[in-house]
């Protein structure tokens, strides 16, 4: 059956066509060259976004692929940041600490996931939200270990005696971590486990009927996403240089959920696009402010208002998320000279209850 094998291998290849390979190659080059092209501030922002990408990829596996909405992701980011900081202070070398942190967060995800999977949908969102609130509280109260609300200073990242604390070096550390995480997730998503995730999202009954161990797979997804978030937390700790519990509160959870949602559920690319959009918003807003007339720019609440407006705009007008827009653009580009006028016929849609999934 060699016929299928070749076809199939082609189908499974990551970058199928020449133009695609070219585009991604260019992207990689740009990312590598970026620290020299951008001013220092933007390198910092880019690093921040890379970190957010790692965290949002984690949530995407859970929410976008497995259909389990979690508002507790900030807790795992926090756990990661704290474990990593504590390990580093204890003198554990950076690579080992990153691994241990990832493992620790995965374990945390496992422990939270096991009871949490008993509920689903909005109930799950609420349980995980409660968990995040409790977790932040514990971080703030457990003074002997976490330094309480005054937080902890994060040691500089060093590798074999070399400091990675500078903006460029740290940018590359984050870029590398993101690349590895992305590659592993891409692999996972195109294999049996990834398909099982999607199956559970679309119909638990059918998934069960196909012999997928629903409980186990859900816990796995939880654990996986916690691991990514924890890893992101470790990097974030370096980015912040000083961590306090409030940094890992509900607001961060909401941001992450917004990233995967606005990026487009069920696509890793969406997670990254979402992280870029949401990650850039604050700086976008602050530069917007500078352009507005001083009276308006100085208004209190302007940030919040614009932030909300952008969210509303994207949720309303990009139902498939940024990813679907991207796919459409790519299609137009691919068919370029023959631009088909897509007839936009409004179809009526009806609310579907999700209460009996």
């Amino acid at each position, binding site marked *: 059956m060699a016929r299928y094998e070749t076809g199939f291998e082609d189908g499974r290849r990551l970058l199928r066509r020449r133009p695609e390979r070219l585009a991604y190659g260019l992207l990689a080059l740009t990312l590598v060259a970026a620290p020299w092209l951008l001013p220092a501030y933007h390198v910092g*922002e880019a690093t921040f976004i890379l970190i957010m990408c790692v965290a949002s990829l984690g949530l995407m596996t859970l929410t976008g692929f497995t259909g389990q909405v979690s508002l507790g992701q900030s807790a795992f980011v926090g756990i990661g940041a704290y474990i990593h900081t504590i390990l580093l202070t204890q003198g554990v070398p950076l690579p080992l600490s990153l691994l241990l942190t990832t493992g620790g967060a995965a374990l945390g995800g496992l422990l939270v996931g096991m009871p949490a999977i008993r509920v689903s949908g909005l109930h799950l969102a609420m349980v995980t939200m409660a968990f995040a609130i409790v977790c932040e509280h514990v971080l703030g109260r457990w003074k002997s270990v976490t330094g309480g609300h*005054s937080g902890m200073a994060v040691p500089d990242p060093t590798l074999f005696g070399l400091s990675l604390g500078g903006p460029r070096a740290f940018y590359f550390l984050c870029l590398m971590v993101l690349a590895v995480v992305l590659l592993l997730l891409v692999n996972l998503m195109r294999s049996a486990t990834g398909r099982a995730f999607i199956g559970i999202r679309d119909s638990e009954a059918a998934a069960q009927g196909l012999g997928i161990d629903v409980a186990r797979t859900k816990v796995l997804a939880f654990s996986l996403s916690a691991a990514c978030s924890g890893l992101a937390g470790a990097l974030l700790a370096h980015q912040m240089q000083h961590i306090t519990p409030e940094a890992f509160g509900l607001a961060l959870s909401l941001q992450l959920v917004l990233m995967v949602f606005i990026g487009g559920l069920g696509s890793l690319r969406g997670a990254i696009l979402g992280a870029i959009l949401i990650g850039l918003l604050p*700086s976008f807003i*602050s530069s917007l402010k500078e352009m507005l007339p001083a009276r308006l720019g100085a208004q*209190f*609440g302007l940030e919040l208002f614009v932030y909300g407006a952008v969210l509303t705009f994207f949720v309303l007008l990009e139902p498939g998320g940024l990813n679907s827009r991207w796919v459409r653009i790519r299609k137009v580009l691919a068919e370029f000279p023959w631009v088909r006028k897509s007839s936009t016929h409004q179809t009526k849609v009806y609310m579907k209850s999700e209460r009996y999934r």
Partner: protein
Amino acid sequence: GAAGVGDKELVLGTHLDLSGPVAIAMPVIRNGIQMRIDEANEAGGINGRKLRLVVEDNASQPSQAVRAVDKLIRKDEVFALLCPFGSGPNVATVKKAVDAGVICFAPYAASGLVRQAAGQTPLLFTTNLNYDSTTSAAVKWATGNLGSKKVGFIYQEGPFGDLVGKGVKAALAAKGTPLAAEASYKVGDLDFSSHVARMQAAGVDLIVCATTTRETIAVAAEVKKLGLSGVNVLTASPGRAGLTIALGKDAMEGVYGVGTWRIAAPDQATAAEKSWAEGYRKRFKAEPDDVAAAFYDYTSWFLQEVRNAGRDLTADKLVKALQASTFKGVSSYDTQRFANNHIDPEWTRVEQVVQGRWTARSSVVDPAKSSL
């Protein structure tokens, strides 16, 4: 020249909570700073430079503050951070700023912790009194003068509450009495009945509050509602503000507070205070407020030394100037100076709301040198 020091312009930055839980307290702070800067610019700038203030939002979120400070340092290339707000945000960012050689002046935050986070640096100048030493002095005063025996503590979870608590405990430890009860709340909590009930259950006769505006009022009102007539309420400095009375009205009557700056009632105001208030009203079409005055003052102090540091401005020069400076502003109790990079002496006194006005109950002292 140094970062932010241009030919015609001096760029300063700050980060405030413009969209977070404490945004309510920001307009006055911002107005106070802005007013002084505008005045300086209207007078032709300082040493030939106009001043430009870049305001960023930290939403009281340390992580957002980190990014805001990154932007201020790297993109706007500010010369100094002027009066950034919030303990969490400042603790998380101060090291970053001073490491980059940016002066951090007068953060409105738990000073002790900010200093701890900053490490050994000459670039940090805190003007906010230490919550622990001032509160400690006030609690000692209360045990002496009000005869308080059992002390309870209601505090905001976070660095601010922690630091006030340290002061309360220090004062009690000196007396050899333990803290009778403590109850924490999170920013955003609306209901303080259980906190007060806890105090009541422990039978306290003095409740020390590490609270800001709304919570101070809520605690005071709850105490009144329950008719706990032998119980005194003492609020740490953030709750002791003109605003709490303006909003809390009757509920605030009789509450004690730890003073950090003068709150001038309109009819008792000095000429300087009156003209300042007039200027504020004109500029912002709003009633002036003690916090605004305080931040106006801090900005004044800063600008005064920028002028003294001369046209050839560098961080080092300004640090030297500041260390050598003395200052007494519209709202200062007394002349202040920086010693060991920190405001010294820490003038404070105990006040009480009497007929809708913060009224002195003790003399102004420096808690490090003498007790109230």
